């Protein structure tokens, strides 16, 4: 089955990285909330259209919502400190928080988009193509997969423990947490060794010419790079105008 938005998804990892990097930098340069909101809408639309808007993405928003009260207090206090009254300060703080939240969403969604649209192998081979040392690439590869694999493994271990009578509420006890983290760590170490061996035998660390690994430049790459440059058009034009005046 052909993946949705295949043209964009098949673009090389460096093009996607360049796009995300440019977008993240722009989010902090941009002061207009409407532009940021539009970027968020586009990114969310692309994620949804590609079928990658899953529970993990919702979880990120959940984490943000959980931290919102603390952020609210910090921003409102900052606003009050800058202005003369509580009312003005609160409004100022809320404005800052809104802008901050929009920038954060741009950052998160751009990164999620790159991660979801880039296969591990693309990431790995792009790093090799950039000429990074083989051992460093193996290390990065192991690290990239570490978190999702550790989570999957932890879920597996909890499942086995539940099969042997562990009640969910017992998980909060330190003794049970230890019985979760120690095996996950040990199994992860063992698996990382096996994986490194498998990748090394498949030539990831071989001293082959890295030029051969460079991905072909396709329409997706052109679109990503064009978008990465296009978002800077207005700021650059403003700069030029200011300079000429």
């Amino acid at each position, binding site marked *: *089955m*052909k*993946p949705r938005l295949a043209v964009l998804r098949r673009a090389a990892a460096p093009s996607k990285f360049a796009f995300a990097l440019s977008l993240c930098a722009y989010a902090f340069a941009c002061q207009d909330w409407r532009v940021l909101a539009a970027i968020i809408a586009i990114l969310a639309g692309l994620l949804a259209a590609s079928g990658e808007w899953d529970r993990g993405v919702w979880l990120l928003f959940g984490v943000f919502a959980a931290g919102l009260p603390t952020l609210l207090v910090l921003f409102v206090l900052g606003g009050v400190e800058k202005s003369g009254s509580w009312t003005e300060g609160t409004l100022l703080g809320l404005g800052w928080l809104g802008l901050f939240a929009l920038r954060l969403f741009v950052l998160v969604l751009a990164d999620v988009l790159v991660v979801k649209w880039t*296969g*591990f*192998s693309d990431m*790995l*081979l792009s790093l*090799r193509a950039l000429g990074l040392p083989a051992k460093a690439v193996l290390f990065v*590869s192991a690290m990239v*997969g570490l978190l999702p694999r550790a989570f*999957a*493994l932890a879920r*597996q*271990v909890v*499942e*086995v*423990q*539940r*099969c*042997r*009578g*562990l*009640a969910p509420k*017992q998980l909060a006890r330190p003794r049970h947490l230890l*019985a*979760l983290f*120690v*095996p996950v760590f*040990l*199994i992860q170490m*063992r*698996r990382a*060794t*096996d*994986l*490194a*061996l*498998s*990748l*090394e*035998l*498949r*030539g*990831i660390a*071989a*001293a*082959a*010419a890295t*030029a*051969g*690994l460079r991905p*072909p430049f396709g329409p997706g790459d052109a679109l990503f790079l064009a978008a990465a440059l296009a978002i800077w058009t207005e700021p650059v034009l403003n700069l030029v105008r200011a300079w000429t005046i």
Partner: protein
Amino acid sequence: MTPAAPAVIRAENLAFTPAGRTDPLFSGVTLAIRPGERVGIVGPSGSGKTTLGYHLCGAHRLALAGTTAGALAFDDGCGLGGAPPGFAGLVAQNPESQLFCDTIAEEVTLGLRSRGVAPAACEATTTALLARYGLQDRRDDSIAGLSLGRKQLVAILSMLAIVPRVLLLDEPTSYLDAQAADRLFAHLRALCRDEGWVALVIEHDLRRLAGFADRFLAMDGGRLVYDGPPAEFPQRPGLPRRRRPAAPANDGAGPALRLRGVRFAYGRDAPVLDGLDLTLARGEVVALGGGNGAGKTTLLRLIKGLGKPAAGSLELAPGRNPGRDVGLMLQNPDAQIFAHTVAAECGYWPANLGLPPAEIEARVREALAGLGIGHLADRSPFTLSFGEKRRLCLAAVLAGAPPILCLDEPTTGLDDANMAVMAEVVRRQATSGRAVLLATHDPDFAACVATRRVRLEGGRAVEEAKPPGGAP
């Protein structure tokens, strides 16, 4: 390809001593392997088969910590420091730890792409391999959602794709169904004959291996005790076929488990189980067969309560609940151990049942002794061999004394002797009135222990047959 061709692998008085030990794990190995040879490495658990295999394919420096002594050469170049790049491929016992990518096609292609092979050639190779193994329509499937058997197949394909000169497969058929295993061995045979590959296969299923290999290397106690054709290899007696548990008597107590019209699907995928009916009586051993991805593991998980059927009903005997009364042993023993000692691992369920310490200790002792691993009680379970871990996983389930046992591929990684122990344990459970449902690809084991066999196909139990021989 002729017997006179120069050896690809040559070992002379080869020995390996693991780090932290003074006695070698194996020693005195002298042999030469020529292009096109199909070598089976056999022997009991812990005899040094895997360690020898890693040396013969030159992966020892990458995978093992210790000292290699003697002489080892690949194409007459010194091999003590490992094999040259591209020389060898290796598929280890645990397929889950060797897979890196998101999708099947991505995984199979990775080795080719990393060598700078042109995209069109990568695509052609991958497509041909996937088509050969019937995976052409699943190329974009997520690896995370595959059955362990399919994961094993993908791990093997990812190594076949890189066209190594020597390929080491450690228990390659442990999770594969018979059809996939036959297909794999036929393919390997052709590659050895036509391309001069050397296939080194570590396998407990000697009958299947004898049909593939043209040479057996038998290890025992760290020594190479046999090097010759399979036909002359002294075979041990197989599993005793005549000691199956008797079919359960109808005691009027009703079945231990009844499934009616069970339907289950992962997400929006096509249903794995679709209208499945199955009844399991007390004292009965039902062997569940079917190809990779047929839904065997899914069914066992549903019975344990790790998922809910989308439709249909799954009923245990009155008063029973799946959490307490169903014991599930999963396929991969590496993913089922978590305690600091073997005894603690085995006593985990009884402890969660709130039993007194003396009772827990008694259950642990009995379960471990029953599977022949009583002497390992104080060892860390992570240091056990694959076969020992497998037996520990079963002991840990038996210690909970559940009236229904669901065992997923209980014989994986077991040698003949341990398989006989496993068969005896299963029979004993049935004789004591427990209902046993086991998923297995091993027809010998099924014939040895099962009172009934059910085959899953298209999500249903489509075939039931009495094992040959009849109950005693």
